[in-house]
């Protein structure tokens, strides 16, 4: 009996990407495994961890959301250097609703997601026409401006911020809310970008004039993408606020802008899964390195550089390529 090697995805690809076209349990497993991995990892195994690591993974989830939000904006060609704008606005909206109106977290978080998304979209709408570095500059400057505004006018608690906010009803709830949000965002965004809507979005990034000539209002689509990204970021901010029981100027901190970009670059931009993976590597890593004290940043920097040099495509692209190359032996007649 002669045998040759064949890629497992060959049969699947040739027919269709559709689940219904699968012919065997094995092919189904091949398609499902990478999708089940994050679900099982986040929802089932991770809660078994101790309180310390659970804490860290919660802030990881927040960064992962900001990183996927960043990736969404990139898919339409908008480079954001100010994810902290989304985080800070979401944080202040949830904090204010809780502090001034005594809304419970179960209401403030959804409200902050939508309202925060809207506010950020309105802030950035005038500049979505700008591309590349110009849009990036505005996103970089806006949170810094808002920071000074809060400081100077002493609104929303000024430098003190809004303290003593309601916590989540239980740490496990917070955990599940955040991980569910990460999964919904991951699969929702991936699905969206795989649809015809996603073709338009990628088309705008690719050749906006082509999309304009196709009778499509590209600014309207950019605004929608902006809203999607900003909402996810504001959601992260609202959750962070109730976790810390505090909303304040640190919400606009540079950390919330830098880490998501680093996560996306390390993990592989344009896939949503990449930035997610990146966040789950970088944030815990930065915690582990905390023991090194002042040298932490040095090691962290070296690590980042190594990653970018060795795997410039990003971890996710690399893993996906390798996964698609998995072969099996088939009999040849």
């Amino acid at each position, binding site marked *: 009996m002669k045998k040759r090697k064949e890629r497992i995805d060959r049969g699947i690809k040739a027919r269709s990407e559709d689940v219904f076209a699968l012919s065997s349990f094995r092919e189904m497993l091949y398609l499902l495994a990478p999708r089940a991995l994050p679900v099982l990892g986040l929802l089932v195994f991770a809660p078994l961890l101790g309180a310390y690591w659970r804490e860290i993974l919660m802030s990881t989830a927040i960064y992962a959301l900001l990183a996927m939000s960043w990736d969404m904006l990139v898919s339409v060609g908008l480079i954001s250097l100010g994810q902290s704008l989304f985080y800070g606005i979401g944080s202040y909206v949830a904090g204010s609703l809780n502090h001034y109106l005594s809304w419970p977290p179960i209401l403030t978080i959804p409200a902050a997601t939508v309202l925060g998304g809207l506010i950020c979209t309105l802030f950035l709408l005038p500049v979505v026409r700008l591309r590349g570095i110009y849009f990036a500059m505005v996103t970089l400057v806006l949170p810094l401006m808002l920071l000074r505004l809060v400081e100077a006018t002493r609104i929303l608690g000024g430098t003190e911020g809004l303290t003593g906010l309601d916590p989540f009803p239980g740490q496990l709830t917070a955990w599940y809310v955040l991980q569910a949000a990460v999964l919904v965002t991951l699969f929702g965004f991936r699905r969206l970008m795989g649809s*015809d*809507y996603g*073709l*338009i979005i*990628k*088309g705008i990034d*690719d*050749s906006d*004039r*082509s*999309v*304009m*000539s*196709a*009778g*499509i*209002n*590209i600014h309207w689509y950019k605004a929608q993408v902006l809203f999607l990204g900003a909402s996810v970021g504001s959601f992260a901010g609202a959750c962070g606020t109730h976790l810390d029981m505090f909303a304040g100027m640190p919400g606009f901190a540079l950390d919330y802008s830098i880490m998501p970009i680093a996560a996306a670059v390390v993990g592989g931009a344009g896939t949503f899964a990449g930035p997610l993976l990146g966040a789950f590597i970088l944030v815990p890593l930065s915690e582990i390195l905390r023991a090194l004290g002042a040298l932490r940043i040095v090691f962290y920097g070296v690590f980042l550089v190594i990653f970018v040099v060795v795997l410039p495509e990003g971890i996710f692209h690399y893993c996906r390529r390798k996964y698609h190359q998995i072969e099996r032996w088939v009999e040849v007649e």
Partner: protein
Amino acid sequence: MSSETPLLQVKDLSKSFGGVMAVASVSFDLKRGELLGIIGPNGSGKTTLVNLITGFVKSDTGRILYEGRDITGWPPYKVVDLGIARTFQMVRPFYQLPAFKNLIVPLCSPRVKKLAGGRYGDRDAVALDLLEEVGFERDAFVSYKLAGALPQGYLKRLELAKSMALRPDLFILDELFSGLSLAEVAGIVPIIEKMRIQGKTIIMIEHRLKELFRIADRVMVLNYGVKIAEGQAQEVMEDEAVKKAYLGSEG
């Protein structure tokens, strides 16, 4: 709408780029069902005129009327929505998409949705049909190839299919024939003739005069942004100013 009103009226349209008059006070009318050829040496403002009509560039002065309605300064998506579609002289496909997926974007436009009565239907199937209409052989799988892997002849036809996907009343084709072999041009001409039978109005910007004159009802000549002649192909080419413009550009 009375039948005498021209489909498109361009009045005194001007546009300058930093001192260079790209289009200078150009006026013309276009009747429904007509095929107007626009010719002129390189840099004479033909593409700029297309950009002005389709809203890609804002005019300095002048008016554009479509079915009697002033559309000056309208953004491209609104112009398309009215039923004006253009092709680009420099083809702009989405290179990393399969050819037929390139048509999904126009098929997602509000205009197509409106014409289909609110339902889009199976866009992939419509896209494949459109590509067959412009001469993509169905069995050869060219429609499934990445646009980046297609030769120029197919890219031009893809560009044409993208405008056809919008089911416009007025086509503005910017140098569709340039860069194509005689055989390839001969393949596209019947598509344009078919559009005419369907009553479409067409503006063709062309450098390939012989092929253009065979199908054009009327020809307009631009030189340095100025309209220097207009009329039947034969009489226009007899015009002294036109001869000079063409000789000048070649010499």
